[in-house]
């Protein structure tokens, strides 16, 4: 059996390098460092239209990610979108009259839930519901409104 200690060292180095590669990918490249197995509590919000919101879409307050969307479902009785979110337990001082809106990051970016805190002394806990919500902006509606408005203005100036 051909074996030298040089070979063994090289194999050890190779395996170590491979593991370094994997760790690099896990930590430096991916979002692993944030939100793995951290404690979260669940909060629900209902939207008339949740637009392009997806599971794992971020939940932010003041521009900082404090949680992510865990489930989206359709309520067949109220015809609303029910969005369930996991919020990091570090942030447990969010007033229960906070409003939730769905914004778009950048012009064509992904959508996220933005929380604007209210003034209540009571805080959101596990199972709370956010009452005040604003739906996502649907691009088609905006364009439709714009066209309608400019048509109106044209008609006005003609008079």
């Amino acid at each position, binding site marked *: *059996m*051909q*074996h030298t200690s040089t*070979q*063994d060292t*090289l*194999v050890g*180095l*190779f*395996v170590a*390098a*491979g*593991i*370094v*590669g*994997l760790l*690099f*990918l*896990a930590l*430096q*490249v*991916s*979002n*692993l*460092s944030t939100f*793995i197995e951290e404690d979260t509590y669940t909060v629900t919000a209902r939207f008339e239209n949740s637009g392009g919101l997806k599971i*794992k879409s971020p939940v932010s307050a003041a521009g900082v990610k404090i949680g992510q969307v865990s489930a989206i479902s359709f309520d067949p009785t109220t015809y609303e979108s029910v969005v369930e979110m996991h919020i990091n337990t570090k942030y447990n001082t969010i007033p229960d009259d906070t409003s939730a809106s769905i914004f778009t990051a950048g012009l064509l970016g992904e959508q996220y839930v933005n929380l604007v805190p209210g003034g209540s002394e009571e805080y959101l806990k596990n199972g709370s519901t956010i009452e005040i919500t604003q739906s996502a902006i649907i691009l088609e509606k905006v364009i439709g409104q714009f066209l309608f408005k400019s048509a109106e203005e044209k008609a006005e100036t003609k008079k």
Partner: protein
Amino acid sequence: MIQLLQNLGRTTRAGFTKLGRGTFFLLHALGGLGSILPRPRLILNQLYAVGVLSFLIITISGLFVGMVLGLQGYYILSDFGAEETLGLMVAASLVRELGPVVTALLFAGRAGSALTAEIGLMKATEQLSGMEMMAVDPIKRIISPRFLAGLLSMPLLAALFSMVGILGGHMVGVGMLGVDEGSYWSQMQAGIDFQDDIVNGVIKSIVFGFVTTWIALFEGYDTIPTSEGVSRATTRTVVNSAFSILGLDFILTALMFGD
């Protein structure tokens, strides 16, 4: 015309027979894994032959691929004013696709064909037969350690490829083309999900490692024991591995990255 159909039928049937033989071979080799675990020396030798010796070609290729991604990616993204997302683009391409696939193809070409040639030569010089007559199971002794080594090496090599590629993209994008250092990494970290991207990429490379090593070892074991037979077997290893890798890549991508 009839001749053509007859040949087609015969080839197809031969193909299925070969697949059957290959499956028994695989099961036998997997069964042998238990008996070689208490003999780490055998596995280490093969890890050296298969992993360490592929290290150089994988890292150099990874570097160049990453650099090209950085370059091409920059030109494409700058049309949309989105150069800052270069890091995300390079990382996503590498981790999800190029890392596992290109590594597997290079592995098949370098380590795979070497394995086929080695085993084929052992068959041609009656070493496998000799071992059988000495009451040593050649599959357990020769094939199983190589199989394990291939299986372990692949994900490590693919991770190395991706890592070096990302650094190469950084070198070109940030170092030469002026992409913001912070954006390169932050966009990447925001966009690459550990479970969806990294883990799936690793799973892909394990699957490719399994299939490529199996093909390489079986072609060698099954070869006609002449020098011509062995050289044809090494060609078959590379070709069949390439087909399998690319085909499996499609299936895995559809399964993993669909919604």
